[in-house]
């Protein structure tokens, strides 16, 4: 729920209840005030009747009254109740319909005969008056509320616009890219504070991230020299004449582990390098030629595994960093060869804007969300688990769309190159 909606719903409930209560009280008060006026009037009429009776010794004729109806009734004896007012309905003979009214009932003794006198006054006009009064008061109040609501809406929208801008800027902030968080211009203290806090956090996050990258880079670099020592010592050991079968096997394992460690380190460094955008020089690259070159490069590996290569390559030129694109194609090839089975197949399709590598594998479909994660690999794989992560990193850096799917027992890796990026 939006802040304004939430605020508004609370406000409207309060306003409506308030309006209802005030309206009710207002109506009541007005009603009582009107009743009292009518009662005064009735009482005056009664006094007139009494005066008339007192002077003339007869009751005045009921037809002699204009705005009230007077009725007399002979009764046997006087009761205790002297005078009473109450509401009633009566038939207005002039207007020929029923109207609500108020009456005064009292008793009177004339010439020893007790009478009951009923004086009825119509409330119709007064009620119309109340209605008018209420309308006159309520309508402007409602109009005022509506205007207030509108003004509120506009004002709040305007006041929150820095906040919305802030939100957009926060969303645009990307730790991976050079884009820094852009502070907003506002005079509102709260937003200024928020702005400042977000700015500080973003700077902190950025510097922390930079530090981590630097650490990764330095750690990987520092490991290269000891690795070089291990390698050279292994090479020296290998020259020993007293090398038996057992020692050779141990050496072989050591070599494998060392080269894997080296590869892992190199991959980490490469990731950092791509992350840091260190490979920038761009040139025109004919992707078709490059893939054909790489086919030659991987030829022996392909032959050894007896893989069937089907390629459909259209002429396609992209404008990018050669190293990055080579890494991209190398990793696609390595992946397709490594995870294949002997006698399997690889299909390479290059059309305008889109490159598709598909390969057969002993593996079933993999989780497309996890496959590009660092160090995600199956237990059978001898790789570093960074190949696809590097692939993804290159694509992120170059704004290429990388996707994976498993169709008809083939693993598909598809890269869509953005046209706009290439033509300039």
């Amino acid at each position, binding site marked *: 729920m939006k802040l304004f909606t939430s605020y508004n719903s609370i406000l409207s409930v309060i306003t409506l209840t308030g309006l209802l209560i005030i309206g009710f009280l207002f109506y009541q008060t007005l009603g009582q005030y009107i009743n009292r006026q009518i009662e005064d009037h009735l009482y005056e009429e009664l006094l007139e009747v009494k005066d008339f009776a007192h002077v003339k010794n007869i009751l005045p004729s009921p037809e002699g009254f204009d705005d009230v109806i007077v009725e007399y009734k002979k009764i046997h004896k006087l009761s205790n109740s002297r005078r009473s007012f109450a509401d009633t309905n009566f038939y207005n003979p002039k207007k020929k319909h029923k109207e609500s009214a108020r009456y005064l009932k009292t008793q009177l003794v004339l010439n020893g005969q007790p009478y009951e006198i009923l004086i009825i006054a119509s409330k119709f006009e007064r009620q119309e008056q109340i209605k008018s009064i209420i309308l006159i008061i309520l309508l402007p109040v409602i109009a005022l509320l509506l205007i207030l609501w509108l003004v509120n809406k506009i004002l709040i929208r305007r006041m929150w616009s820095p906040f919305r801008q802030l939100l957009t800027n926060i969303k645009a902030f990307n730790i991976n890219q050079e884009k820094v968080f852009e502070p907003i211009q506002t005079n509102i203290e709260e937003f200024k504070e928020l702005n400042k806090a977000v700015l500080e956090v973003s700077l902190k996050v950025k510097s922390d991230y930079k530090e981590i990258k630097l650490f990764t880079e330095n750690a990987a670099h520092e490991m290269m020299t000891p690795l*070089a020592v291990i*390698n050279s010592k292994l090479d*020296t050991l290998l020259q020993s004449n007293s090398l038996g079968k057992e020692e050779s096997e141990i050496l072989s394992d050591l070599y*494998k582990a*060392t080269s894997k460690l080296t590869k892992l380190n190199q991959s980490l460094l490469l990731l950092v390098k791509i992350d840091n955008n*260190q490979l920038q020089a761009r040139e025109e690259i004919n992707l078709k030629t490059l893939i054909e070159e790489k086919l030659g490069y991987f030829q*022996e590996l392909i032959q050894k595994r007896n893989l069937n290569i089907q390629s459909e390559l259209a002429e396609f030129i992209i404008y990018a960093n050669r190293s990055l694109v080579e890494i991209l194609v190398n990793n696609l090839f390595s992946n397709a060869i490594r995870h294949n089975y002997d006698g399997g197949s690889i299909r390479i399709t290059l059309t305008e804007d889109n490159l598709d590598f598909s390969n057969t594998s002993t593996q079933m479909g993999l989780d497309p969300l996890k496959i590009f994660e660092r160090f995600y690999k199956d237990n059978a794989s001898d*790789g570093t688990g960074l190949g696809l992560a590097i692939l993804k990193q290159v694509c992120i850096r170059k704004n290429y769309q990388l996707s994976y799917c498993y169709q008809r027992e083939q693993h598909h890796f598809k890269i869509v190159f953005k046209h706009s990026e290439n033509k300039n």
Partner: protein
Amino acid sequence: MKFLIIEDEEGLRQSIDQYLTAEGNICDCASNYEQGYQKLSIYDYDCVLLDLTLPDGEGLQLLKYLKKLNKADGVLIISARNSLDQKIEGLSLGADDYLIKPFHLSELYARTLAIIRRRNFNGNSLLSFNELEIDTASKEVKVNGQLVYLTRKEFDLLLYFLVNKNKVISKSAAVVHIWGDEADMADSFDFIYTHIKNVRKKLTDSGCKDYFQSVYGVGYKFTDA
């Protein structure tokens, strides 16, 4: 041949020294900038192996100094930093090659020999081993004067083994030499077996003796012993 190894990591320096000396070369060692500076001023070398990060100075400064002395020494930079900028800077300052740590000694040796070969303009580009003859310039292999057709990778492999003759070359070193660092294929050691089998077959088919010896699955040796 005479080498100068400027490297602060003692273990690495020793191994290189040992490997090169065993090949019949003379090696001088320097463990820091100062020692390197002095040796470069006094002696001439066929090839200088230069580490870029020294405890008391920048290796690139030594390179500049060497070039200022106008000496003909070949320079192979060995660095832990795989940075294109540094590589370009080193090469533009006059280094002949750039090798990234970690490396195999056989690779290092092959590179230094290649540098020396290239520097000796008057020297011929022919390498021979009994009936086998390799022309590094035209990339031709001859057995008893007869041309043998090898693929690019097979040629590289044969040359690699020939310059490191009588040494055991691990499969790992051979894979790195053939594939470089780019492909995530460093673990496909067994494939080198196919490669060597092909080279062997082509050579023996044209009447060459089989000089390749397998060393218990860990590597191969090119020798006539």
